[in-house]
């Protein structure tokens, strides 16, 4: 008999609404699943068993009374331990905040409460979200559910691992250079970084204010759409929030037979990653392109608008992250893990003119992308140039160069561009290596065109059940 925790929101919500199952039953299964998988995964920093069960009882009562709030009502979820939670410690994966217990919730946590979702725990992550491996020096590394010797990717590594392993139904992540999409790709799940400003960041510990995004990690495209529909919306308390109408992103995903990619113009840019992709990634992405072509999409090869964005964009994160951490670096630097401390200190050497010119390049980049989107509907690329590698691996190959993945941003090579231009980008699974490690690809859309991204992704996902329905070995 399959576990309820293998099911998606799309499958669970009707069962909860019709009272065929109870939130209490579901949360209990979730907590049992956490207990079983945590010795392997280390995906959680805190598990909220008592409060989750109390909330589940309340949700059950509401649903029994006919007060069903929507598709997230009664669904157990987790949040990266960067989201402030009232009365629950929020560590950012750091010893510096080991005893930090906020008095308020992040805005998105409040939205989840309003939607009736049940928080079961806070996920492990790369310290302060400043890294892509989720090898946490204080709480231990996150382990990949497909092969526990491998990294999950990061920085939202615990989030992606918990969703893939069924120790949460969905999770909230953050993305500054790829931190939702990289672990989603490595763990075989779906993650979307929405348009900058689409989802409030109030109450989420910042890494880089102008590059940070919040978004969901889920088992399926529909689940990600349902979650983003609750997360999204203007928040006057977030200086970066955009006053742009939101929508129910699942509305366009109802009739899967009506969804197709015929007539779409799809941009790709192979020259940007020529010679950098691992063979399994290259093969999987080539099959993606062939599928789009075979189904009537026009694939258009582009020269990359701003090749400098990868290196120049790092100036923004370095400068902003240093500004946030400057005081702690002077007074309690020994509490930072070695790799993050190394990266943070570098930010002090960036002159103001370089920061401003990086923002000017960003403006130029956005103008160029706006022109490109006059000719294409979506832009596709692999999510990461390689699949997951072993925890503790000293170096990985970036073209012909051996680099330390903790110091070099090699895993962000294809994802950071979306944080730089602010467009919505989703990663979804498109294949596996011979060693059964997932591979993902990205769909980028126009600013605030999340609905289009979901529709294209859903069409691909529905046509590839052999990929989307595959479960990791932890279910055996």
């Amino acid at each position, binding site marked *: 008999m399959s576990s309820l925790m293998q099911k998606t929101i799309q499958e669970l919500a009707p069962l909860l609404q019709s009272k065929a199952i109870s939130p209490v039953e579901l949360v209990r299964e979730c907590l049992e699943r956490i207990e079983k998988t945590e010795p392997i995964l280390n995906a959680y920093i805190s598990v909220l068993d008592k409060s989750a069960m109390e909330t589940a009882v309340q949700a059950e009562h509401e649903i029994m009374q006919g007060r069903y709030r929507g598709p997230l009502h009664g669904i157990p979820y987790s949040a990266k331990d960067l989201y402030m939670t009232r009365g629950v410690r929020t560590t950012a994966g750091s010893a510096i905040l080991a005893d930090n217990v906020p008095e308020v919730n992040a805005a998105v946590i409040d939205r989840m409460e309003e939607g009736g979702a049940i928080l079961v725990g806070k996920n492990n992550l790369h310290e302060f979200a400043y890294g892509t491996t989720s090898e946490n020096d204080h709480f231990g590394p996150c382990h990949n559910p497909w092969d526990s010797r491998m990294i999950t990717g990061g920085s939202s590594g615990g989030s992606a691992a918990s969703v893939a392993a069924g120790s949460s139904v969905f999770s909230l992540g953050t993305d500054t250079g790829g931190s939702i999409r990289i672990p989603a790709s490595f763990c075989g799940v779906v993650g979307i970084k929405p348009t900058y400003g689409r989802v409030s960041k109030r109450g989420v510990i910042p890494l880089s204010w*102008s590059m940070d995004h919040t978004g969901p990690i889920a088992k399926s495209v529909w689940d990600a759409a349902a979650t983003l529909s609750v997360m999204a919306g203007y928040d006057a308390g977030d200086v970066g929030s*955009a006053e742009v109408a939101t929508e129910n992103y699942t509305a366009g995903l109802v009739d899967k037979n009506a969804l197709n990619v015929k007539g779409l113009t799809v941009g790709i840019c192979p020259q940007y990653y020529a010679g950098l992709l691992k063979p399994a990634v290259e093969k999987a992405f080539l099959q993606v392109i062939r599928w789009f072509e075979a189904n009537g999409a026009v694939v258009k090869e582009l020269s990359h608008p701003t090749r400098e964005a990868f290196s120049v964009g790092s100036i923004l994160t370095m400068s902003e992250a240093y500004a946030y951490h400057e005081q702690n670096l002077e007074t309690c630097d020994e509490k930072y893990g070695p790799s993050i401390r190394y990266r943070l200190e570098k930010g002090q050497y960036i002159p103001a003119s370089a920061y401003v010119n990086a923002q*000017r390049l960003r403006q130029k980049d*956005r*103008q160029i992308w706006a022109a490109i989107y006059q000719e294409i509907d979506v832009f596709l690329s692999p999510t990461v140039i390689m699949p997951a590698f072993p925890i503790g691996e000293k170096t990985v190959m970036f073209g012909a160069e051996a680099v330390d993945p903790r110091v070099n941003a090699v895993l962000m090579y294809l994802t950071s561009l979306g944080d730089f231009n602010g467009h919505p980008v989703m990663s979804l699974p498109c294949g596996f290596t011979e060693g059964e490690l997932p591979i993902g690809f990205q769909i980028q859309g126009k600013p605030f065109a999340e609905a289009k991204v979901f529709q294209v992704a859903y069409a691909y996902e529905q046509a590839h059940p052999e990929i989307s329905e595959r479960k990791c070995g932890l279910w055996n």
Partner: protein
Amino acid sequence: MELSTLRSMTTELCGRTVNSAIEAHLPQYAVEVAGVLAAVRAAALTFPADLAPASVFSLKSEPSNK
């Protein structure tokens, strides 16, 4: 980039202390920072003079949103 320049930036411009962790990494910082600054300088050479920075905290007024 001279290491003494970085030390001066830490102490004089940032008001910080050059602790042992920073000192140990200065040679690597010198190489990496020089590289990234050269990249942004090269990019800036291609900018039209009136190119304003991106509106840091909003996409609302970007042309791509119209």
